């Protein structure tokens, strides 16, 4: 019971921080484009950071 709560909490923390972004992307990729090559973790991280910061992301 406590174990499953902790697992859920840890999943939430990873999700909130973006720690699991690559795993989520892999799942999406496998489903949406199963026959295309997947970018590596490093490449994905760099590309995502660049995409993320090309608009207004932080406020006053």
């Amino acid at each position, binding site marked *: 019971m406590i174990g499953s709560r902790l697992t859920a909490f840890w999943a*939430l*923390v*990873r*999700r*909130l*921080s*973006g*720690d699991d*972004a*690559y795993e*989520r*992307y892999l*799942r*999406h*990729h496998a489903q*949406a484009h199963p026959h295309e090559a997947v970018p*590596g*973790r*490093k490449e*994905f*991280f*760099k590309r*995502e*950071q*660049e*995409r*993320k*910061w*090309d*608009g*207004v*992301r*932080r*406020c*006053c």
Partner: protein
Amino acid sequence: MGSSISRRMAWLAVAVTGAGAVGGIALNRGESINALWFVAAAACVYTLAYRFYSAWIAARVLVLDETRATPAERLDNGRDFVPTNRWVVFGHHFAAIAGPGPLIGPTLAAQFGYLPGTLWILIGAVLGGCVQDMTIMFFSTRRDGRSLGQMARDELGPVGGAAALTGTLMIMVILIAVLGLVVVNAMKHSPWATATVAATIPIAVLVGVYMRNIRPGRVLEGSLIGLALLLFAVAGGGWIDHSETLRPLFDQEGLTLAWFVIGYGFLAAILPVWLLLAPRDYLSTFMKLGTIFLLAVAIVLLRPEIRMPALTQFTDGSGPIFGGKLFPFVFITIACGAVSGFHSLISSGTTPKLLANERDIRMIGYGGMVLESFVAIMAMIAATVLDPGVFFAINSPAGVVGKEAADAVAKISAWGFPVTVEQMQFLAREMGEKTLFARTGGAPSLAVGMASIFGSAFGDGLLALWYHFAIMFEAVFILTTLDAGTRVGRFMLQDFLGNFSPRLGQTSWYPSVLLTSGAIVAAWGYFLYIGVIDPNGGVNILWPLFGISNQMLAAVALSVATGILVKSGKLRHAWIAGVPLAWLAAVTTTAAYEKIMSADVRIGFFAAANDLAAKLAAGSLPPGKAAVAPQLIFNQQLDAWLTLFFVVVLWVVIFDMLRVCARHLQGKPVQPLTESPHEPSRLVELWVRD
């Protein structure tokens, strides 16, 4: 039936408690009042507004449709369009909207006493800011997550679109300048603060390299290492402060530090994001959420007494921190925390792409702003738990109270806020600073307030550490805003220049990157430079300018919202955006009028310029001041024109919106609504099936 009655009784109890707490705050004229009253009043006002007003807007005005597929579902690409759990979206949205603004504004506005700022934060948020964020988020969600600028162009026309874009660019420049000034003032002649803030840069780079090369994408690991290093840097700053050889290296004049901040801003804008900007943002987000949570816990545990009176004599416009009467200046000074136009840029474009269901808009749009408003209330508490004498000694610029400590305490004590030189020296020593006189900008006084709250709640011996922790916490996310803002400004400029030269519009062409980054940095660097050489501290000029520009952007957002409501046949309910719009228009216009026309040199830009020019001509200025006077005169005139520009843009957008509404109501053709067609959501049934 029984449960319905007991539920009603519970809500009645909330309403009565809320009314009692707000009344208690408003009518208290005793020596002091407990901070718990503020927390109680805020909690009740927010709960009631969220439960009833936001529910009514969601159900009756916007008519959120939970069966309709959101852009995240329809356009899911696994990256920016992703249907996401609403608590996760709430976390992202809150981390994005809550910056240094709600901490600084209330601190400065505390010069009027605790009451005006507190009431404006509560009322402005639930009737204005929350509504703006929620409606803009809804309209953007119905339009594939388009940005505010695009919506303004599509729904009102090219004039509205251009106004939104220029507004965004200008606000960015002013915001970065004033935030840069806040950091510079916090580091000025403070080796400990300077060393700690400087250390955050290599720490961010280290974390960036870790996340990119050593353990790619391991955001949590990298952030934890970074956070440990940041705490170590706070302690290490103290060590540097005590070292005879290292101390002078970090003991710098404001102007030198300003040049460092400008150079840093340029570097951060041209370096790859993964190296500095992204890791710094991870650190600042964790730091921000952690500290805000800690502050809330400390306030509830400690229940400090508020020492500032409800109202001070400075409501008449003679305040030392910034000149100007209670109306309209309290409403300009506190933008973030009550209504912030900047939020509409996050509420459109960014957050809507993550929403899994339209019904989450109420919690994330309205609720997110409620939480930010609560941060502003805590900042107000942290500013007003200080002795008023100490508060004014820290925040009054030398140009107003005098350079010598004895002059300053005499003047502040004469206002009826007793303070002594010994008291200030003792406090400075406890905080590990050389002096706390004239440390304008709000950050040092907030840090003293936070340190005293944390110190009493979690152990008194570490005041200096808590103080520099608070300074580091503010500096870290101010610098994030500075990096991110410069970058966005650069993209906007490149986008604009691309109309004339496609080459310049390429965001990856390095000469264009250098040129446009340089232009944006030069723009805010100019205002930062002037702010630093201004003997009156600069904040008194820049913060109102920032407030006016931010409220102007809010007015653009609310105009878009009002226009769409009217065009959607919801004229009867368009007041939910129209009333805050009218209030902001009145406040911003009055403030702008006074900043331009007032004959009081502490308020009117032209008056100040003319006064200084006359003194310069008469030769009555001391040599140091005479040398910078021409630049100050030019700047005051420039600020006046800038204010005029903001207010013109504001009214152009309002009239454009009124024109569109009038045409629509007369049955004449207008830009059609650009809402995406209804597609049923499949997520609901998928969840059921799974």
